[in-house]
């Protein structure tokens, strides 16, 4: 793992690396270098398995973190490539031609986080959210309660109780 990370550092210098475990590391990469780094790891280092592609919303920093987790079965280790994107211009190059399953992950990220992957198959087609009208729901600033209250009506005859107050009243009625 040390040698693999050293070779990665040599090709893409100055990147932040986190060694989480002896068999797991995360490396931050410029968005423009992601494709080259992924190809390097896949074709030269044996990281042929795309384990997952997902996003983390760092709302306070105005950034999305994309994590491409790649696995090398022969060496039993993983490297996560982290790419930071500006939240207000969240567009990333597609990797569906490197791993066909990447297209599925990218469709989900497009819908749930609003991150675009131009050229990825069916990236603009509805995936999980059919007829969705709101902002991407997995963004940290998506307010679930406000969205529900502005889009759905309360059903007549139902009441909502504060769970803590309700249980307090139920368990200790003498205290009012």
């Amino acid at each position: 793992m040390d040698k693999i990370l050293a070779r990665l550092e040599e090709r893409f210098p100055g990147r932040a690396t986190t060694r989480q475990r002896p068999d797991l590391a995360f490396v931050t990469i410029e968005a423009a270098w992601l494709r080259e780094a992924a190809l390097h790891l896949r074709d030269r280092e044996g990281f042929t398995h795309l384990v997952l592609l997902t996003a983390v919303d760092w709302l306070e920093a105005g950034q999305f973190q994309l994590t491409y987790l790649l696995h090398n079965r022969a060496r039993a280790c993983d490297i996560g490539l982290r790419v930071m994107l500006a939240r207000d211009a969240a567009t990333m190059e597609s990797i569906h031609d490197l791993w066909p399953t990447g297209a599925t992950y990218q469709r989900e990220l497009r819908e749930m986080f609003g991150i675009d992957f131009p050229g990825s198959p069916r990236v603009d087609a509805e995936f999980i959210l059919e007829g969705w009208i709101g902002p991407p729901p997995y963004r940290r600033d998506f307010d679930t309660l406000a969205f529900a209250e502005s889009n759905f009506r309360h059903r007549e005859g139902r009441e909502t109780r504060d769970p803590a107050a309700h249980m307090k009243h139920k368990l200790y009625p003498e205290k009012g």
Partner: protein
Amino acid sequence: MFEPDRSQYPVRRADGSCEIDLASGKYLKLWQGPNHPGITGNMSVELTVCGDEVVEGITHVGYLHRGFEKLMERRTFIQCFPIVCRICVPEPDFNEYLYAAAVEELAGIKAPEAARWIRTLILEMGRLNSYMMYLGGQAGALGLGVIGQWTTYARDLMLDRFEELTGARIYHMFILPGGVRDGLPEGFKARLEGTLCEVERVLKDVQEVMFQNAVFKKRTVGVGVIDPALFEPYGVTGPNARAGGVAKDVRKDQPYLVYPELDFEVPTATASDMFARADVRRRDVHLSVDLIRQIVAKMPDGGPYMARLPNVLHWKIPRGETYLRGECSRGEYGYYLVTDGSGYPRRVNVRGPSYTHAMALLERLIVGVNISDVAALMVSLHTYPPEIER
């Protein structure tokens, strides 16, 4: 017999998509699912058929999205633990274990030795149950309905053991950050052995009635073959890969819990067709039975079962990220956990094997399949849509 020549259509575009003119009368659109006995759970496949041959299949999910990953961002670490098992109904324990293991790693907690053995025991019991469900489904998709009744009976016996051990049949909520809730009840080992013997008896009948059955063989041998060259590009793991000669198994590749202390070899096959996948899973059930016996024989008597945790109502975990994986009955299951130093997860991402097997891979395999084999093909990939829609 009249055999029309359909070889000239559909026309494939350069990007691989089909040129389908429904008005031509050559094609028919059919929906398999979401309400259909031949669909594996809450998803559907939009089929385009030419005669009885599928020329295109487009998967549709989204019938069961519950927003678990979002829910967890607004719950404390301990509040997340009863949620995660609900992500995958037939084999919920992997969610409990992987979430707990990820939290423990980032929080710097080590589960006690006895808890590690009980966790492994629970995961193998869950795997056995999941395979029982699969065997019934696979046989049922090809008209052998009675197999499903037998395997459901065997699964029910194991659910009794789960109920005895955890207090619940489906969602056990037994593995939590720090360890497990309790040890084995008195007399549990003997009753578990009785259940294993009954499972083996049922398996013997399944072997004779299902795997020796001419209809089952005719409809599964050479059907739904996954080219091993597709394993890496399509993220194929678990029995789907092992049936194609690649012995991928996290229990061996990156051993976790007490697997290094157990003696076993993972079953493999080479044909990579529906029969090979079913046979690998049948042998995997025998392996689970064997592993459960080894665990019961080797596990320590008595606790402790829980590590000392901080006050869970005010539990903050330092900033970090990790990924934990395990081998569930369908392949690689994983949890990617990101923490930011607060009392809530910043991000939890669940990587279920169905995510790759049930969509991109299925869409590729389904082309050219006879319409009557679509249900059996889907079942043979052993996918659970709930884990796609976390």
